[in-house]
């Protein structure tokens, strides 16, 4: 059985500590998305549709992707570097020799933490992004909070939120799998740790972008 304490420790490190960065990113994207769309839609007299556009874009695409990018850069790389350092300093071998399965002891808590925290951060980021967009709508378009919320909720459905959560689950699975694999297979010393961390970030980004395209295609054509 894996350690629940370690699981909670990883939830804090992978997820909770990423909240400030994820919030800032989501807020700034919501803000800029609203500004850009307000100008273009305003030219066509359709500025009232800014909340619709922002909520759909954030829930379906930008929310899961941006938060995944933040988590790859911050938490995925940290997992690879930590496991890699443990590998080169014989800590993983020590666990094996003590008859403690490193996968159960080290990987499972990180896996569970990532699967819980990336979707949670995505939902959180979606709402922070929408808050940023509301600020623009309110200050620049004189749109009331009630109008903004009604427009957002009218257009976006629960399924839009679910597609984002499904995506973030898949991203979480890919990110932690790639990060742990890179960390456990570090060869050499500090140089090896650096190379594996870079490899982990690049491969995670590529896997995430490809998976996103495939899933968007699936949701677009099938559902």
């Amino acid at each position: 059985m894996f350690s629940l304490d370690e699981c909670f420790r990883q939830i804090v490190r992978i997820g909770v500590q990423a909240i400030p960065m994820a919030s800032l990113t989501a807020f700034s994207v919501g803000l800029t998305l609203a500004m850009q769309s307000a100008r273009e839609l305003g030219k066509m007299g359709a500025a009232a549709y800014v909340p619709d556009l922002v909520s759909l874009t954030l829930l379906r695409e930008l929310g899961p992707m941006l938060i995944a990018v933040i988590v790859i850069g911050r938490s995925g790389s940290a997992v690879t570097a930590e496991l890699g350092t443990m590998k080169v300093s014989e800590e993983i071998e020590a666990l094996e020799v003590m008859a403690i399965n490193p996968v159960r002891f080290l990987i499972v808590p990180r896996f569970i933490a990532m699967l819980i925290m990336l979707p949670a951060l995505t939902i959180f980021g979606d709402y922070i992004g929408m808050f940023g967009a509301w600020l623009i709508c309110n200050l620049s378009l004189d749109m009331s909070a009630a109008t903004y919320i009604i427009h957002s909720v009218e257009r976006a459905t629960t399924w839009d939120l679910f597609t984002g959560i499904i995506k973030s689950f898949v991203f979480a699975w890919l990110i932690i799998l790639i990060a742990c694999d890179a960390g456990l297979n570090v060869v050499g010393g500090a140089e090896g740790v650096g190379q594996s961390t870079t490899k982990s970030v690049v491969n995670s980004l590529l896997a995430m972008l490809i998976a996103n395209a495939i899933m968007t295609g699936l949701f677009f054509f099938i559902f």
Partner: protein
Amino acid sequence: MSASTPTEPSPAKDRGEPVIEVTDLVRKFGDRTVLDGINFKVYKGDTMIIMGGSGCGKSTLLRHINGALKPTSGSIKIFGEEITGKSEPELDAIRKRFGMNFQFGALLQSLTVGENIALPLREHSNIDSSIIDLVVKMKLELVGLTGFENLKPAEISGGMRKRVGLARAVALDPELLFSDEPTSGLDPVMTAVVDQLTMDLTKNLGMTAVVVSHDMTSCFRIGSQMIMLGTGPYQGKIVAQGTPEEIKNNPHPFLQQFIRGEADGPIPLKLSKDDYIKRLVG
């Protein structure tokens, strides 16, 4: 022993089944043969010293005996069980019966000193948490680190980390202890303390120990059996084996140079003048 061939062990007296039995062990990394036909037995209560120059394969041999590496060929029996073909879960049953003290401690950096020592106890026993805390304090006292349980490994010195590694290795009071250079980097007093601890464990508690070392004073102080691994033309082979007395009296020039710590001798540290010129000009 002195008149016998270098690799011939001293005759085993009636000591029952060996705790460790290594037969014809060969390990190659690519074309390089690191261990070449290693044979020896370790009996209960023995302190077997594996010594040899840097890069001779001492730690590699130890990692084969504890199951971390698989040999190219040959047999390794621990507690009478062949381990070379065993899966990880099967090996774990044997690993719970021995402790391993790593060369640089190999402590988990994310845990405190106390949590590191408690780890095998928490994982492999149902002992109450308060008793585990007590055991941790006792083991820390054994290695002269009372009161250090709440510090992280990064907050203590390299020598202290080694001693914590030793405390963790004996946390479960194992039947067999592997120690990889337990005294390198320790001051003479602490070296004597660690040596005394190893002797107490083997002589008073009947533990068997396998110690990798090139600290000659320590080796002759604690060893009851010794093997010397060779380098250069003897790479990967046992140059000599026997009791400390037999090793001291063995006339093998390679062994004598190593024991006396002399720069000149058969141990190839430098290229000969001709080889040096040949390598330079091609």
